[in-house]
């Protein structure tokens, strides 16, 4: 079965940032120095070759793209300065844009100014829409009644709407990725669900992907970190990343708990509770964790702490900024909520917080955030191969 190459692939990839990849002459130094590349996933050389030749389906079906944590060791060892590390990042951007159905991701990655404009506009539209429904008369109430300001119902349904859109686009992308990867890996339904043994294997692989790797950051922590030169622990990439992930998930959990308590009629959302209260405690700790992680990522990219953070694209900044604003405004709301005399700015910060948080979710399949969907899928296939 011969594959017809896409002669335009390389030029297209270059729009996503793989600028120097033409210089690569396939020596394989990158693969040799990569701490994560092994017999079940050889990269980056093979990925670069796919790009040069124009093997689009092979590239998009490569779980290897998502096996990389971007330590940039390969970039330092590349004799032709082809920047394989940046190529891997660009190929992931290209993959995100290729999997999702709307073409929005392509705009964000290839036209960063337009992407920024879209990012601001989406938040502005969401905020404006909520403002049109807001009760501006309650601004001077003796307590900060956030959900009287913007109706609870509205936030609820708008949030569900954003989630639904995100899930739809995300699922579309994940299905495309799964099909492409399964084809390249030769994985069939039979192999994951055909027998009791297969199901057990698939479940094990899912645990490896979600539990051990995504939550536990095992390979990031054990195999990938500390290179090229060891960073001090407080800014070690796996830890900063893990704190971000855990913080985000903690905040998500706190929100669920808070909503659950309201459903149970224990307390209304947005009302003051003591610090030990489970949802508030979790939210505060998780928020600090998220803020620490995101802030360090931002400072690292700004100061170019490591080779990894030497090049930053608009999409890198967009994700970090959205997360940072969400986290910061969250804390600001907490401050406002527990201040003796409720400040009026609390309402506006709240509006911003809700708009940006919604945008974050809505844009997930199109921004760098999409890696939270695709990386576990790739790691699942990787684990499946390991368990074969």
């Amino acid at each position, binding site marked *: *079965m*011969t*594959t*017809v*190459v896409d*002669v*335009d692939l*390389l*030029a297209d990839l270059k729009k996503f940032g793989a600028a120097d990849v*033409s*210089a690569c*002459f*396939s020596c394989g130094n990158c693969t040799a120095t990569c701490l994560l590349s092994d017999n079940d996933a050889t990269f980056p050389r*093979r990925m670069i*070759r*796919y790009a*040069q*030749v*124009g*093997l689009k389906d*092979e590239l998009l079906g490569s779980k290897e793209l998502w096996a990389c944590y971007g330590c940039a060791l390969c970039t330092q060892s590349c004799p032709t300065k082809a920047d394989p590390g940046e190529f891997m990042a660009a190929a992931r951007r290209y993959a995100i844009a290729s999997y999702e159905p709307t073409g929005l991701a392509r705009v964000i990655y290839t036209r960063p100014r337009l992407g920024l404009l879209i990012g601001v506009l989406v938040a502005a539209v969401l905020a404006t829409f909520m403002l049109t429904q807001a009760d501006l008369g309650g601004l001077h109430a003796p307590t900060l009644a956030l959900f009287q300001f913007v109706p609870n119902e509205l936030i609820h349904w708008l949030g569900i709407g954003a989630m639904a859109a995100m899930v739809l686009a995300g699922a579309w992308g994940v299905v495309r990725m799964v099909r492409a990867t399964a084809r390249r890996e030769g994985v069939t339904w039979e192999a994951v669900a055909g027998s009791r043994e297969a199901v057990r294997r698939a479940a094990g692989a899912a645990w490896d992907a979600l539990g051990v790797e995504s939550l536990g950051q095992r390979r990031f922590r054990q195999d990938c970190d500390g290179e090229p030169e060891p960073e001090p622990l407080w800014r070690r990439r796996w830890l900063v990343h893990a704190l971000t992930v855990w913080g985000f998930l903690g905040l998500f959990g706190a929100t669920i708990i808070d909503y659950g308590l309201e459903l149970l009629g224990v307390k209304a959302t947005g009302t003051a509770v003591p610090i030990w209260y489970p949802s508030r405690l979790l939210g505060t700790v998780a928020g600090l964790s998220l803020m620490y992680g995101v802030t360090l990522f931002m400072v690292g990219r700004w100061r170019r702490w490591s080779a990894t953070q030497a090049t930053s694209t608009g999409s890198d900044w967009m994700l970090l900024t959205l997360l940072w604003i969400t986290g910061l405004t969250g804390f600001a709301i907490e401050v406002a909520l527990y201040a003796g005399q409720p400040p009026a700015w609390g309402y506006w910060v709240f509006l911003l917080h809700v708009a940006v948080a919604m945008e974050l979710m809505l844009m997930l399949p199109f921004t760098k955030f999409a890696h939270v969907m695709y990386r576990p899928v790739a790691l699942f296939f990787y684990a499946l191969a390991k368990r074969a």
Partner: protein
Amino acid sequence: MSENPQAAGEQGEAPRRIGVYICHCGGNISDYVDVAAVRAAIADDPDVVVATTTMFACADGQQHEMVRDIREQHLDGLVVASCSPKLHTTTFRGVSRRADLNPYAYTQVNIREQDSWAHSDDREGATQKAIALVTAGIAKTRLSTPLEPLRVETVPATMVVGGGVTGLRTAIGLADIGIAVILVEREAQLGGWLGRLGPTFPHDVPGRDQVARLLAEIAERPTITVLTNAELVGKTGSFGNYTAKVHVRSEAADELRQFQVGTFVIATGADVYQPEVGELGYGIEGVVTLAEFGTLVDEAAGGTLAWHGRRVRSIAYVYCVGNRQPEGNAYCSKFCCAATVHASLKVSRLDPTVRQFHLHRDVRAYGRYELLYTQSRERGSVYLRYPDDAPPEVERTADGRLAVTLVDALTGPDPITLPVDLVVLVTGMVPRENEALTTLLKLPTGDDGFYNEIHPKLRPVETVVDGVMIAGTCQGPKPATEAVSGGLAAVTQSAGILKRGFAELDPLVATVNEAACTGCGACLTTCPYDAISSYVCDTGQKALVSAANCKGCGGCVPVCPDDAIDLLGYTSAQMLAAIDGLATTGVPA
């Protein structure tokens, strides 16, 4: 060592004073041959004045001792029993010359390759054989006569055959050191392949301009005679002084002209491989050779690259077409990788978005051409290696484009198909059809059909035919840079022969005893070098050997029914005496 200089030779001739040196060769000889026994066996020969063994006959110190012996003992013959004459003939001729001994009174006896190495299992037998060989060598030396090198006058003119870049540059080089040149070109125009090319690697100077520059320089040199529409058709005469016949075509009438020349430089060039229809898709619309593609690119300069009016957006180059084939031309043409890489750079300058795939078997852009290769990769050319035994397949697709299918070594084993607008077959060189010239000059050709030099490193432009040099691509495929270097090497070789005004030749040639010759003519047809002619004198028809043309092969000697021909240095008397020497010592069977 015999101290009896008065002893007479066996055959009653004047006594000789011969020095015999038997070499150990470190142990190469003495481990298997009892060299002391050999010395003892011949030391009593009345004509042997000095008989000695030596650790290394060729060592500097030993050479000095030989010179001293020859001078002090008034030796008139020298026998060195050591290795093959191929190694040290020149060495010991030099020893003789330094001691004022005629170099042809020296005989080399091979007791290493032909004795100790061959009979390492039989010391006794090897020793006996060494004694026999040395005895024979002494017998031959006993009858030696002093010989002097043949001196022939040379003509300070060279005929350059072929007016391509090599021939043109060679002609200028010769003219500049004072050698007249007759430049013979078969076609109507000078310039050859290079003269038809646009910008060439590595410096992008058009081939046409380079040739134009050479032509201008030739026009400034009155000692260069240019003949176009002309072919070399005859060569007679002897070394350093040949008569060349040139057939010149013209519209009025054909003409046969004669020139006296001392040497020839053959620079007739090569042809380009022409693929057969069906070979890698040749014959399909859009499949072109490198030469055709070069023209296409040069004509597109400043505009867009198009094929039959359609813009070319992707190209596949298939390398090694007609070259490096297990069946067929096994050699590499050396220029084609660099030429193709360079062409692809020209294309990327025309339009950087054209996708270029190079399907190769390894890119031999050697030396500085590597930089072009790197540059082409950086500009987006992709190199894909296909397996030696599975060349790419070229097909025409339904939409009128081309599909090239191959296995890429770096992504295989599954084949991939490249949809392209143009396929360029990178064709190498083939030897040019030149049967008449080859036969005329008796030029040796290799299995590949190109002319052969004597030695690829040490004598790279000389041929076994005296006075005939080869240069450029008639000798083998190469880029213009190397072709011109060869031409200039031929200039030096020609100058080496011609600038002294005379040449010295080995005197080991055949001579005819006029009295004994009956003029039967048997020898006339045997000489492979046309060195024997006949003349009529008072006593009838006689054979005459041209010493300048004779190579001393000895082929004519046994043919003569009257033993009227002798080979100087290897006379019948010497050879019979040597055989007698071998026989009397009784080599064990």
